[in-house]
């Protein structure tokens, strides 16, 4: 691959005086732009469609370009080393990398520049993979890549060195949600010396897991696990729990968020997932909740927690961990006979019934006094829905995702039933059995050994639940076209149908609005990248933990919560946070204090007019509070004096990019005319190149 690392050394503006590297704050005379252009093959991803060497050659015609190089993988160590060496030798003082989308590697290259002593903000990224080689082919791809790389050099020439904004960070965290994800994250943070406020909408800690019995596949008692975790949270001196509370306002920035919480309105359906109230009805509400003291365990609900008595209560925090959890899918009326036949229940309901009978055995399972001779469990209810096959809900949503936990939960329930009540038979109606986790496949095998009957249906031909006749001898009949017996139509008379309902994100529209949270097509909160930054959101200092992000089981949830906590600890560890310096800056000499920018500013407090003393006289000038500035640029567009601009994204830089997009200069057939500005043909080799 080394032969691909060709180099075009070009003379730059002021090579007579090679500069010491790392001259971040030096005066302007040292800052004559010398742009290094580094173009990536991406192992064929780019070079299969873009003639990378041609682009590199064309950069010879572009003003300000001191050197242009290529590499098989610019992001690799040797690729980064090319850039660092040119910076260290003083050949260049600004960098353009042309490679994949900036979301993947912009930070990689900024970091490399910093390691070489350069200013990481004198960097511009040209996206020639996602926006060129993967969408265009042949000469047009090469030509567009040329223009986009040239445009990047146009901006790079105008980039000034910037320093990150340093913001003192409170070593405090707010965790929103008191399920196992929130509890786990709160404990982790507290044990690393961070003060935690845990905010929970309901009166209980334990969330979705508290509604379960024995957990698949290892059979731990959910109540015991929740009681232990919640007990440690309630006892921890660094954690304050505010239950029965909702977030009512949110502002500030990483290191210094300000949040208000208020008592959740009583009887408001929003105070718990819709499922919770439905479940309370299903199980029969405990009724004596008022008698519970914090720390007491209420079966099916969790550990009672101290309630926020009055509000609003103002919280100041350095980071926020979102652990808002999931809601059980609620079957539509009539879906598999739900709400039409009392013998059709959800699997979560069946699991609670089994939890209430933990340790009991008998010949046949009794439910509401009724012997259950046969139970049919239908999988994928409200999960794996297919457009055109399944009916959308009233808001037009389909749950196309797999809910991940239901197969194991259903099989675990089947084993419990078969082993405790041998005269109760279990029929599982499934599409694919997804016992993926450690120990789960063994439970599946055990179910077969327990004579659980498996019947496989296709999404297009789901089972049908109908009222049984006297001849059937059972109240319900499940009709299915069973793919395991070559598509035979089978009727299975049963006493009970349990619907293995999937997971949906918890209903948190207010939080999504207040914190401006990104939501995926599946309506779960959307991480920055599933592998690069799996527990982070675009808003710095806000992290994701658990099933608000995607369906997970308890162990996976705790992993995610700890992963979020570790990021928060790393962020707060130093007591300050460094922010990107892409904020507005006022040129005080040009500012006339007209206030147009303050008028246009979209974030209250970011811009203000103030009186300043200049040459003994008092004048009005605009002033930016960098930590509050969003960097949107609304101010820059309206300033009549062009006295305010966004660092790193200035209007002049955009104008330069447009100039280069329309310019045909890179395409000039060069030869050795040496007449075009910036063309280096025939000139001396750059030192150190």
């Amino acid at each position, binding site marked *: 691959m080394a032969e691909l690392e060709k180099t075009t050394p070009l003379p730059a503006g002021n090579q007579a005086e090679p500069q010491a590297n790392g001259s971040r704050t030096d005066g302007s005379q040292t800052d004559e732009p010398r742009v290094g252009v580094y173009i990536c093959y991406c192992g064929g991803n780019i070079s299969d469609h873009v003639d990378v060497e041609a682009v590199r050659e064309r950069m010879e015609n572009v003003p300000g370009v001191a050197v242009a190089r290529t590499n098989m993988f610019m992001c690799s160590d040797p690729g980064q080393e090319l850039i660092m060496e040119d910076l260290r030798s003083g050949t260049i003082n600004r960098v353009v990398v042309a490679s994949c989308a900036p979301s993947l590697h912009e930070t990689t290259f900024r970091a490399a520049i910093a390691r070489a002593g350069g200013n990481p903000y004198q960097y511009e990224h040209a996206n020639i993979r996602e926006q060129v080689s993967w969408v265009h082919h042949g000469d047009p791809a090469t030509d567009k890549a040329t223009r986009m790389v040239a445009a990047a050099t146009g901006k790079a020439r105008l980039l000034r060195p910037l320093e990150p904004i340093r913001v003192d960070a409170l070593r405090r965290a707010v965790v929103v949600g008191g399920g196992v994800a929130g509890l786990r994250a709160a404990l982790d943070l507290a044990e690393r010396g961070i003060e935690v406020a845990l905010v929970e909408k309901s009166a209980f800690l334990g969330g979705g897991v508290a509604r379960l019995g024995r957990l698949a596949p290892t059979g731990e008692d959910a109540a015991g696990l929740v009681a232990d975790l919640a007990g440690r949270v309630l006892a921890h001196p660094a954690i304050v729990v505010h239950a029965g509370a909702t977030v009512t306002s949110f502002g500030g920035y990483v290191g210094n968020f300000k949040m208000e919480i208020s008592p959740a309105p009583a009887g408001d359906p929003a105070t718990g997932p819709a499922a919770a109230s439905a479940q309370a009805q299903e199980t029969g509400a405990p009724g004596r909740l008022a008698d519970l003291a914090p720390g007491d365990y209420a079966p099916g609900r969790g550990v009672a927690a101290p309630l926020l008595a009055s509000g609003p209560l103002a919280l100041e925090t350095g980071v926020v961990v979102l652990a808002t959890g999931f809601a059980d899918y609620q079957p539509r009326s009539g879906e598999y006979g739900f709400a039409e036949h009392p013998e059709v229940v959800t699997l979560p309901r069946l699991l609670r019934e089994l939890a209430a009978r933990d340790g009991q055995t008998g010949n046949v399972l009794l439910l509401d006094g009724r012997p259950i001779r046969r139970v049919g469990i239908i999988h994928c209810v409200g999960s794996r829905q297919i457009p055109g096959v399944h009916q959308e809900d009233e808001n037009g949503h389909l749950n196309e995702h797999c809910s991940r936990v239901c197969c194991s939960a259903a099989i675990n329930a089947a084993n419990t039933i078969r082993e405790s009540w041998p005269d109760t038979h279990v029929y599982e109606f499934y599409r694919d059995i997804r016992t993926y986790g450690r120990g789960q496949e063994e439970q599946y095998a055990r179910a077969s050994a327990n004579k659980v009957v498996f019947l496989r249906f296709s999404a297009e031909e789901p089972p049908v639940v109908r009222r049984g006749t006297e001849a059937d001898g059972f109240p319900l009949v499940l009709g299915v076209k069973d793919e395991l017996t070559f598509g035979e139509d089978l009727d299975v008379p049963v006493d009970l149908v349990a619907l293995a309902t999937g997971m949906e994100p918890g209903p948190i529209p207010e939080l999504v609005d207040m914190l401006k949270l990104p939501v995926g097509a599946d309506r779960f909160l959307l991480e920055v990248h599933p592998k690069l930054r799996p527990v982070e959101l675009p808003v710095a200092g806000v992290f994701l933990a658990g099933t608000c992000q995607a369906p997970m089981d308890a162990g996976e949830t705790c992993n995610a919560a700890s992963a979020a906590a570790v990021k928060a600890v790393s962020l707060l560890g130093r007591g300050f946070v460094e922010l990107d310096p892409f904020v507005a800056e006022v040129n005080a000499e040009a500012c006339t204090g007209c206030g147009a920018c303050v008028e246009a500013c979209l974030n209250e407090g970011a811009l203000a007019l103030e009186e300043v003393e200049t040459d003994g006289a008092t004048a009005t000038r605009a002033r930016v509070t960098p930590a509050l500035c969003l960097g949107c640029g609304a101010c820059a567009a309206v300033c009549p004096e062009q006295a305010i601009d966004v660092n790193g994204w200035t209007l002049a830089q*955009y104008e330069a990019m*447009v100039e280069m997009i329309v310019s045909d200069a890179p395409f000039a057939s060069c030869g050795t005319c040496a007449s075009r500005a910036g063309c280096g043909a025939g000139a001396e080799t750059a030192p150190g190149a």
Partner: protein
Amino acid sequence: MSTPDSHSGVPQGKILVLATESCAYPGADSVGQAHSSYPANVHILRVKAPVLFPERFYLDCLEKGIGGIIIMSCGEECPYEGAYKAMARRLDRIYERMKERGLDIRRVRLTAICTVCNRAFLNEVNQMEQVLQELGATAAA
């Protein structure tokens, strides 16, 4: 497609896309990840929020030889509260000034593109392509 330009064989006229960092730009990346092709005269610039650009920026671009501009914003999902409304108001003023100069306002479009709006993205660039074919490659007649 129309006559190839001297260098590249792509349709004449350059389309400039101002794509927001948090929605439309990753949306364009998503089109790339799907390997859906679109005309190579579409040039995408990453912006934090298009509200940065004053009216004169658009007019200057058209004067410099850009044939059409698509502002791909986040729409109502905009992380900068109020920026989309401010942008919509600015667009009205851009159109006024374009009309004053006899420019067809179809050369500038404001739209919302999400991070997975592949089809919408392709529709937008193809529509602008049609506009350029109808009106000519550049606004500077």
